[in-house]
């Protein structure tokens, strides 16, 4: 399906109608609150594989949708589990 994004409310629409939003992931291993704060603010997993992310349908329903995408190919994938 690639960069046509399926909106559960509006249907599939071009990526140009959407705004990408990241869902930050801070590793549990970072216990120090200050280090967690810095990691959440700046660091990125930059996943080379399946990423969970949010897209805002700006030109349609104006709501966030959560999707899973393979960052190597830009293909949409089913939520794991």
């Amino acid at each position, binding site marked *: 399906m690639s960069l046509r994004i399926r909106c559960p409310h509006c249907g599939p629409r071009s990526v140009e109608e959407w705004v990408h939003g990241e869902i930050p992931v801070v590793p549990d291993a970072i216990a120090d609150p200050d280090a967690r704060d810095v990691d959440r603010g700046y660091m990125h997993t*930059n996943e080379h594989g399946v990423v969970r992310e949010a897209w805002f349908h700006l030109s349609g329903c104006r709501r966030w949708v959560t999707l899973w995408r393979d960052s190597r190919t830009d293909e949409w994938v089913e939520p794991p589990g």
Partner: protein
Amino acid sequence: MNEHPEAEITLRWNEPEVSYDVVIVGGGGHGLSIAYHLATRHDITNVLVLESGYIGGGNTGRNTTVIRANYGIPEAVRFYQHSLERYRALEDETGRAMMHDRKGLLWMAHSEAGVRQERARSAVNQAFGAETVYLEPDEIAEVCPEVDLTCGGGFPTVLGASFHQGATARHDRVVWALAEGAMRRGVHVAPGTAVIGLVHDAGRVVGVETAGGRIAAGTVVSAVGGNATVLADMAGVRLPIRTHPLQAFVTNRHQRRFDPIVASGDLGFYVSQTARGQMLLGAEIDRQPSYSRRSTHDLLASLSHRAITVLPFMRELRVLRQWTGSCDMSPDYSPVMGDTGVDGFLVTTGWGTWGFKAIPAGGEVMAERIATGVVPELMAPFALDRFGRDRTLADRGSSGTH
């Protein structure tokens, strides 16, 4: 006519040995520049450059070759201005033509907000030696008569800024000249060799794993484009990097005539004519992080539309080839260079859309850091720990159109 100047350059490849003083991961412009400067400036030649594909085949081979220093903050202007000056010297130093062509960069603003941003950037440029002059619309018409100053009526041009030292160079030749220069002094370069792991010992990185075996290293430098976070993960280092696609395209060749590099911040596009006569167009990054290098029609169409709005003479030119590179973007639009908190593991990353112009200076300062153990002044502001120290380098001048 085919100029075939590469006939001068000779490349000699090596199978990796078991141990090196320095192993550089990534045989692009930055990796090879580090190797070149280690060899030429510090006489460190027990160096291996590992490249998973062919040299210069990553972002160095996919960028749009603009060399400029007109950035938005003093630390960046200083760094890129030094790099720009080094670029000019590299041709003489290596004895290899890089088709370095100083053609000037014309940057246009079409709104009061655009003008304010352009004036601010020009001011900091002038303060740190990157010559910039303002151009009124009639002066723009003299520098580049092809510009439609009204941009189809929709975007009247209010102000231009001309950065005289703006230049282009042929990216392949930069890579090959640096590789040849390093190889001639004994540096090993191994293409087709991917790093699949790092070797740790007592909290230190002491080597790399490849399909062909383990290679010990006094220092491992990540000069990877696109996969920097993957490699850093192996070292246990978190990076402030997201990888985004950046697309560009060229038209067919035409006789050389179009001189300046023309850019518009408000419209989000830039164009130059290459030494071979192709018109080369670029724009901003794709918004979603991705390692995909698949080109999109959206970008091609929207960039074409913006280009012919500013330069209507391009309407009937034909698109030859479209491609996509991977940009490692940092949150503050500035690179990340140097120490990582893990001994034996250095990074140069976060080169976003501005890595090509930084190749000479980036290699030079990293080589100095490796050789001396001291962080050079030009490099210091770009340290990874700046985020935790709340000393980010917000450089709006580097974002978007480059």
